[in-house]
């Protein structure tokens, strides 16, 4: 295929105007449907999963059987599954995620309470991942033959492969050792709350990102337009950023979007290793306690994030590389 010349981003926006509006509205419908389907799958699999949430709830209160049955009727948990499902969908449409059985509070406010912790971790991890991923990927592509390139590639592979349960524990171990030696203990103590988990989490994402950057860059460096740009006398740095790096970014964006959706919906293992509050821990507890409403709430959030970030990355990709719009 003959490469199309680059145009300013405005052109991409225009392209989207034509068939774009239709495509976007279709995407949105698709997305809403995906969220709906994911939530329904979870709704039914939760109810099929055994374990009576009421008995769990009252386990510490030494309730009697009669008291439990009274409560079941009061909460409407004795009604047929399908009518519970309809109720659930109805309140979901109103933007109401229901009430947590265990705390008696709206799921939305529970998520709001835990979410800042998840956001700060996810945001830091993502920032670090993108930075490290770009550096490793670029190094791996342009210094492919040298030791630096090989090392960069190796680090990326390590990042993808190592389980965070292990890297996290290793980091905690080193941190504990440092505590024994250091004098700035208060400073060190605060590292464990955010910096360590963010680095560990980000390192794993960085590996995946670096791989995509590297292979995309390797591909575009071989393209004939690089030669053409060189012939036109464009400065090397600009040539690299604008002509080589930019068109290799769309796949990077789609991976970054996946990573973002994942990170922002809570990271169970990292939170467990670092004993850190957040959505992931809340989710595990909710599954164990049978607090359905919380699990559903988090699934709605996770699925919506997934759909949203995917759509966002597609739009950004078209702005970065207008050729993609034609291909679609």
């Amino acid at each position: 295929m003959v490469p199309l010349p680059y145009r300013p981003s405005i052109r991409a926006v225009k392209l989207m105007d034509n068939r774009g509006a239709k495509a976007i509205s279709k995407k949105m419908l698709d997305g809403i449907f995906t969220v709906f389907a994911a939530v329904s799958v979870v709704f039914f699999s939760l109810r099929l999963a055994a374990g009576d949430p009421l008995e769990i709830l009252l386990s510490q209160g030494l309730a009697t059987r009669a008291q439990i049955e009274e409560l079941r009727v009061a909460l409407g948990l004795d009604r047929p599954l399908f009518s519970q499902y309809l109720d659930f969908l109805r309140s979901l449409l109103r933007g109401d995620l229901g009430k947590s059985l265990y705390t008696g509070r709206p799921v939305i406010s529970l998520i709001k309470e835990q979410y800042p912790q998840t956001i700060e971790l996810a945001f830091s991890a993502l920032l670090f991942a993108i930075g490290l991923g770009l550096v490793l990927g670029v190094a791996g592509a342009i210094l492919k033959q040298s030791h630096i390139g090989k090392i960069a590639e190796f680090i990326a592979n390590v990042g993808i492969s190592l389980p965070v349960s292990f890297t996290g524990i290793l980091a905690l171990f080193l941190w504990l050792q440092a505590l024994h030696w250091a004098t700035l203990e208060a400073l060190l103590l605060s590292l464990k709350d955010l910096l360590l988990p963010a680095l560990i989490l980000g390192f794993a994402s960085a590996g995946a990102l670096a791989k995509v950057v590297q292979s995309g860059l390797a591909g575009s460096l071989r393209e004939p337009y690089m030669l053409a740009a060189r012939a036109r006398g464009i400065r090397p740095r600009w040539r690299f950023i604008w002509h080589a790096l930019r068109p290799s970014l769309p796949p990077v964006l789609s991976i970054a979007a996946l990573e973002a959706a994942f990170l922002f919906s809570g990271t169970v293992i990292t939170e467990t290793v670092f004993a850190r509050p957040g959505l992931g821990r809340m989710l595990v507890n909710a599954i164990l306690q049978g607090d359905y409403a919380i699990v559903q709430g988090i699934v709605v959030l996770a699925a919506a994030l997934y759909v949203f970030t995917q759509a966002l990355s597609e739009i950004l990709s078209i702005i970065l590389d207008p050729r993609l719009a034609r291909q679609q």
Partner: protein
Amino acid sequence: MFTFPSIFRPLWKAGHRVPFSLALLVGLLLSACSSMEEPLSIVYGLTLAPSGIDPHINASAELGIPLSSVYDTLIYQNPDSGEFVPGLAEKWTISEDAKTYTFYLRQDVIFHDDTAFNAAAVKANIDYVINPDHLSQKARFMLGPLERIEVIDTFTVVFHLREPFAPLLDSLAQVYLGMASPSALEEWGPGDYQFHQVGTGPYRFVEYVVNDHITLEKNPDYAWGPEFFNNKEAQIAKVIFRFYEDSATRSVALESGEVDIIGELPPQDAQRLAALEDFDLYPIPIPGQPLQYFFNVEVEPTNDLQVRQALLQAVDRQFIVETVFGAFSPVAEGPLTNDHFEDIVLDPYTSYDPEIAGELLDEIGWVIDEDQGYRLRDGEILALHLIVPSWGSNPEVGQLISAAWENIGAQVTLEVAPGFGKLREAQGEGNYQAIGLNFFGTDADLLRSFYSTDGLFNWSGVQDSRVEQLLTQASQATLDPDRRVKLYQELTSLIHQEALLLPIRDYVNLVAARSSILGLRYSSQGWFPYLIDLQFAP
């Protein structure tokens, strides 16, 4: 306060911390702040961030640690003598049929929000607890067969019961039935009230930031504490509670000066701290049931008394306690913890002897099959399914029990149930030979739901009219403490004779505090400190 680039401002507000390069800076600032803290405040380390801290609604023991000092209760239990003494009620009378309790209230008490405390406030509290929409997890059930509350006059209130309920006084002495300001209850309602708690206690509730901290401040007006408090008013102006869920970091937090008091230390860390001059170790026994495992008498082969006896003797409880809990825990000897229920728990359990255990099994036909390495009878393997909860050292203890039973030729399947639901489910299916669960509590009536035929936690499946009768008598027929002790003694030896239970270890909470802090004492329940008695060494 310095300003952040605008892009970071929402994060700063939302999460109290800022990513990356800024984290270092903030870390420095934080460390500077903590060293400048005024001397009249202390930090108390809590061990888990509870899912809710409304004592009327939530059930965790953790919430009582701060809140026992925010609320007063109608009556108090003197931790030294175990007697019930006046609290917000000056005196009380119990009717002949033990169904009517009349409380005469103090007239000089005001809540932290200046609402007056009176009989109507008591009624408002109890009504709040028993409202089924409020989904109270513990407090509601502590009231037992309560029928209604009657306000006689401004300072007299009557509890009417449907049937006698001996544990009522014990319940009313706990923070879960502490007295909250009726106007605050009404203003905030369940869910939000936990962030705006108002009581009458020696400390007032300042704020609760989920997952982060709870702050209490001295109540200068406090003048109605029970007589066994050492101090008339709080000596420390401010107490901040922080959460340390990761057990490995608790001692680190204490040694680095981040906290002044912290509980539930791992035994190895506790041992190390005990040897240091700067810290004092307080091993606090927690009354209730020991870490325990019930034999299922409804299934093969544990329906046979002799099998159960053999399994008891096969387990080296001393070794288990030393391996898992170190030096600070007593080996349990009955269905209730020894320290608090010493009158009830009398005879010690049979000692460890795997050979006798083997002989007992040989006698009844369970003989080792050399090919398979297991005991067989009529071609059937001696198979045991042991289910243990995932919390409170149960998995570790379960593994050692399972190894011990394997050792005498049983084939053991160990299952760790990751939540209460799985335990209940297993109980419903009944396909286990042994299962673990234990609760804490200060009244022996705790045993009822575990041994009564239709008890919710009757894990043994025991159906014994003698047991039933003892339990009913002890909770309904008499309020006389001595008579109750006699009844529970009888029950305990029945459980013992029938080999229904494998008790392992009485719970001890390992608390350590900076030695400059004096006066740390705990209520009868073991978890709850009397913050009013804390003070700094002169």
